[in-house]
């Protein structure tokens, strides 16, 4: 274990970023007949890979900070799936802190999620079977990833691997130790899977492209109008000088 090798591993790449698409949110079931005054809902707050892949390749642990009225409001989840289930009646903000593996990033990242129990449409009947689900898509961006980080995650689908600079080669990653371990962490067979929302960037991209086109056309029109008026104003100026 020579020292130069370690520093090689720790060498960071500039201009390279690696991102992890995640979805975080909650699902809440109304307890119906079994609901009491203080426990009307059973809810689960979670952070998952956007494509339901296992996040533990990057995330070491997740800490959910609940409302102070809960016992032990600081809940630590050490392994995937990174979720927490509880029962209660109130909606409040949950602070979710993601801690990453040492070679990934030493700083934790904070997310904030407002727990939602009651459906938007207040007039409709509450169902025991269908949960209220609120999810948000986001991407964790790591700047200047170390070589060892890149090497380790290169075969994991949870991570959006960047294009490396030309001529750059990574050492091959260590073989995945435990197939069964790896399997468990993903949420593809998660009981809540059927309620998970789909996030597709295609729709949004289309909408944005259309909007940009409209705006650009309008800009071109205005520029033409401005040049016309400039010409007219120029005439006025020169005639008034006489």
């Amino acid at each position, binding site marked *: 274990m020579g020292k130069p090798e370690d520093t090689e591993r720790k060498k960071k790449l*500039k*201009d390279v970023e690696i*991102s992890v*698409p995640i979805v975080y949110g909650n699902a809440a079931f109304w307890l119906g007949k079994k609901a009491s005054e203080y426990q009307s809902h059973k809810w689960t707050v979670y952070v998952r890979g956007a494509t339901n892949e296992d996040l533990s390749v990057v995330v070491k642990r997740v800490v959910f900070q609940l409302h102070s009225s809960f016992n032990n409001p600081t809940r630590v989840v050490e392994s995937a799936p990174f979720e927490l289930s509880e029962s209660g009646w109130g909606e409040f903000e949950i602070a979710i802190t993601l801690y*990453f593996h040492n070679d990934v*990033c*030493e*700083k934790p*990242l904070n*997310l904030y999620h407002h727990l939602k129990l009651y459906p938007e449409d207040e007039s409709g009947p509450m169902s025991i079977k269908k949960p209220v689900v609120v999810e948000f*898509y*986001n*991407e*964790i*961006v*790591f*700047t*200047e990833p170390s070589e060892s980080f890149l090497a380790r995650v290169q075969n994991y689908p949870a991570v959006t691997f960047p294009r490396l600079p030309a001529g750059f080669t990574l050492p091959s990653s260590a073989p995945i130790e435990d197939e069964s371990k790896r399997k468990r962490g993903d949420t593809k067979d998660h009981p809540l899977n059927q309620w998970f929302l789909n*996030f*597709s*960037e295609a*729709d*949004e*991209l289309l*909408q*944005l*492209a*259309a*909007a*940009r086109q*409209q*705006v*650009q056309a*309008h*800009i071109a029109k*205005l*520029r033409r*109008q*401005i*040049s016309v*008026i*400039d010409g*007219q*104003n120029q005439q*006025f*100026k020169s005639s*008034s000088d006489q």
Partner: protein
Amino acid sequence: MDAKDILGLPKTPLPITQEKKPRPQKDSQRKPDGISREVYALTGGLAPLMPSIDASQLKRRPPSDEKITWQWLPFTSSARKDDLQLYHWVRVVNGVPPTGDYSFAKYNKSVDVIKYTDEEYEKYLTDPVWTKEETDQLFDLCERFDLRFIVIADRFPTFRTVEELKDRYYSVSRAILIARAPSPGEVAGHPLVKEPYNVSQETERKRALSMVLSQTKQQERKDAEVLAEAKRIAESRMAAQGAEEPDLPVTSDIGPESVERAIGHGDTISPSSVQVPSAAVAPSTSIMADNASTLASLRMLRVYLRTYALEQMVQAASSSAGLRTIKRVEQTLQDLEVNLKPKVPTKAVCAEHLELRKEILTLLNLQKQLQYKEAEGSSFRDGSYGDMPGTPKRSHRVVDQDRTFVPDAISFGGERAGKREQKRKGPGRVSETPSSPAHKRPRKMKASDL
């Protein structure tokens, strides 16, 4: 008073009160003591802030032990080559005339113009563009006029620019110096050898100077703005680079790009309007600077959320815009049926979103510009120059019939348009027929107007 004396009119004017008024004025003005009133009046009748001459000294008599006479005496000057004797008044003290050379002789300075021999000319000084005759003439003029090249240029028989003459003179002198020097080291210290005359640089320099001197006020303003913006960009780049680790190539890539784009922007926008130059140029250049420093600070974070990055970039892009403008941008996004915060914030989506926001800002700026120009145009047309297009003027004039009408609000999208029209009260906006020039209809400006 004195005028009346001169004219021979009676001294006492009929109303006595009139006389009394000017007198106290004159008395108070008569500040000086030691200088007569007429002399004082030469300065405009006001006391200077710092008396240049000690007034009390002026009336002082010379020391009484000295006997001063003035005599008409002959003198010679060492500055003259002949022995001409001239006469002048001389201040003689106690019968002793002053000694020494003529006091102005010391000002007779001249330049040591090098004289080369024909031999030396053949050996070192021949030049394709200069004949020996011309060079000789040049040197003769240089000596006669003490290197006053403007005069020399005027008198030179053939046409030569001042720079050409200087160039020839200095290069000949330099060549002779070096040739005559026993060793090159000895003349190396001579200013002419160390820094030879640079014709092209001189011509350029003078051209640039004359350009700067002949700039119009508008150009001056433009230059000052661009320089100020470039300075700002450079400073923010320095700040960004100073905050980072020493080797980060990306920021420096953005740097020159941003400066180029900034200057390009400045050039295209400012000719169009005098009123909106600073508003138009400043946002574009400072946006580039803000972008670069935002990227740098994001980099420093090591880890961040895509949405956070987008927020920062949006803030940087709208840093120069007021709250109203930002609200308008958001309203436009809504009209376009775009989420104010993207639902699926991938890298591509965020980039598109940012670009869209920037384009909307540009759009709003252009609309403002157009309004200004229309107001300008209509003020020209009506001949009322006092009606300068200022910021939100209440009576916005409707423009002529033959001009295309520009809707104030952007009408986008199909489905939503109907709803919006219903909500709006007051004069219809989008499809309004322009009135004839005789009618000047004041239109109320609403918050959603630009």
